[in-house]
């Protein structure tokens, strides 16, 4: 790549190939350059047939920051020259000179779409150029030249290729599937890269996932801490009451049995035993004296429950036994209430909102018993 074709070399080559004196070839080239620059200035775009297009591209002014001082500066807009090689030429360069024939064919193809060419001369005469090229191809001088070029062309090809040896490694690695486009020759350095990256990505992704989960958990914990603690409390209370209930129940039979052992009159005792059973039945008539007033009368709708109403009016579902207590007269099972049943919502005093009082626990026990 270090090889350079200098201006003089170009001039000499041009002179010998076209059969003109070096002086006139030089004059031609100079004039060509001048034309090129002029055309760039006026037309902004110059297409050199069979080679590529020179374009004058405007770069808009933009803002930047002085790295040292941090000042804002505007970089003024300017023009720059851009070169885009012709499609055919690109391929030729890629293939590193396969031969003159293909060259000529491509040229023909190029020559057809040249109408927008600023240098129209070139476009119109595309066919002639092809002819000339054909002639040149026939002349021995050019042939030798072409051969030389071919020889030169092959050399750089050889350089990238010797690296082929590690190929077997490539075949073993399954990652090759990902790159079906690539020819095997070019693969040796790549397969490891994507693999590494993939692995890397995988680990990073999992790490990120785990971290995210942890963060979400922590946030959730802080956010719902109060709720959670109240939940736990209510659970504990329920357990307590459950414990309390059997304790109370046990007491009565114990006393009864004690009485039974103490008193020989067996007939009276059943009455005593029955009494506590009767009491809740008589209590079906709600004792509304404990409530100081009514907030509202709510109708049970589809999906509604006492607990929800309790939450709505008292702020927590744990107060539902009060609702049941206040509406005991027309409620059978607090879990099975017909839709449309009116529920009176009593006002609760501060003391009543205390769920640890004996009163509340008793109400709760009754209500829970009603469920069973």
């Amino acid at each position, binding site marked *: 790549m270090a090889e350079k074709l200098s201006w003089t070399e170009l001039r000499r080559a041009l002179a010998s190939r076209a059969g003109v004196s070096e002086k006139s070839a030089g004059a031609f080239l100079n*004039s060509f350059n001048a034309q090129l620059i002029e055309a760039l200035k006026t037309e902004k775009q110059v297409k050199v047939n069979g080679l590529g297009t020179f374009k004058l591209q405007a770069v808009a002014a933009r803002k930047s920051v002085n790295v040292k001082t941090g000042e804002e500066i505007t970089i003024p807009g300017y023009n720059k020259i851009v070169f885009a090689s012709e499609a055919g030429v690109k391929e030729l360069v890629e293939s590193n000179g396969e031969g003159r024939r293909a060259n000529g064919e491509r040229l023909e193809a190029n020559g057809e779409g040249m109408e927008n060419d600023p240098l129209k001369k070139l476009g119109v005469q595309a066919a002639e150029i092809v002819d000339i090229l054909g002639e040149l191809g026939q002349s021995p001088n050019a042939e030798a030249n072409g051969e030389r070029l071919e020889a030169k062309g092959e050399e750089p090809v050889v350089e990238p290729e010797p690296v082929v040896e590690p190929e077997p490694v490539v075949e073993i690695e399954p990652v090759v599937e990902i790159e079906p486009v690539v020819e095997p020759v070019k693969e040796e350095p790549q397969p490891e890269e994507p693999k590494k990256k993939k692995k890397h990505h995988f680990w990073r992704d999992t790490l990120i996932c785990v971290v995210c989960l942890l963060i979400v958990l922590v946030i959730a914990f802080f956010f719902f801490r109060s709720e959670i603690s109240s939940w736990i409390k209510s659970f504990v209370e329920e357990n307590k009451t459950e414990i309390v209930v059997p304790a109370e129940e046990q007491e009565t039979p114990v006393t009864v049995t004690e009485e039974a052992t103490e008193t020989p009159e067996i007939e009276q005792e059943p009455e005593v035993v029955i009494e506590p059973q009767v009491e809740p039945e008589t209590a079906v008539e709600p004792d509304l004296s404990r409530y100081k007033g009514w907030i509202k009368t709510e109708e049970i709708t589809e999906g509604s429950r006492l607990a929800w109403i309790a939450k709505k009016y008292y702020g927590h579902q744990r107060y539902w036994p009060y609702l049941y207590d206040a509406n005991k007269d027309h409620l059978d099972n607090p879990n099975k209430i017909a839709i449309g049943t009116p529920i009176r919502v009593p006002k609760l005093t501060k003391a009543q909102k205390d769920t640890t009082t004996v009163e509340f626990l008793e109400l709760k026990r009754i209500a829970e018993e009603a469920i069973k």
Partner: protein
Amino acid sequence: MIGNETGLSKKDTEQLLATMTAILRENLMAGKTIQIQGIGTLEVKERKERVIVHPKTGNRTVSPSKKQIAFKPVANMKDHLKKI
């Protein structure tokens, strides 16, 4: 126009142009750098193969290495055209 300046016939100019581009092309094909006096250099640059990621599907493929013709204008010319 070139013909007017150099005193060559139209046909000659065309031929010269054609041969010039042919020479340039061949040299580029051979991987040579071409200096065009007063304008700049044409150079064949090799773009290395690289891993590209399809932005939509995230597929990773390798874009093969390729050769491109790069143009580098002479500093003088660059400044000259900047002001247009």
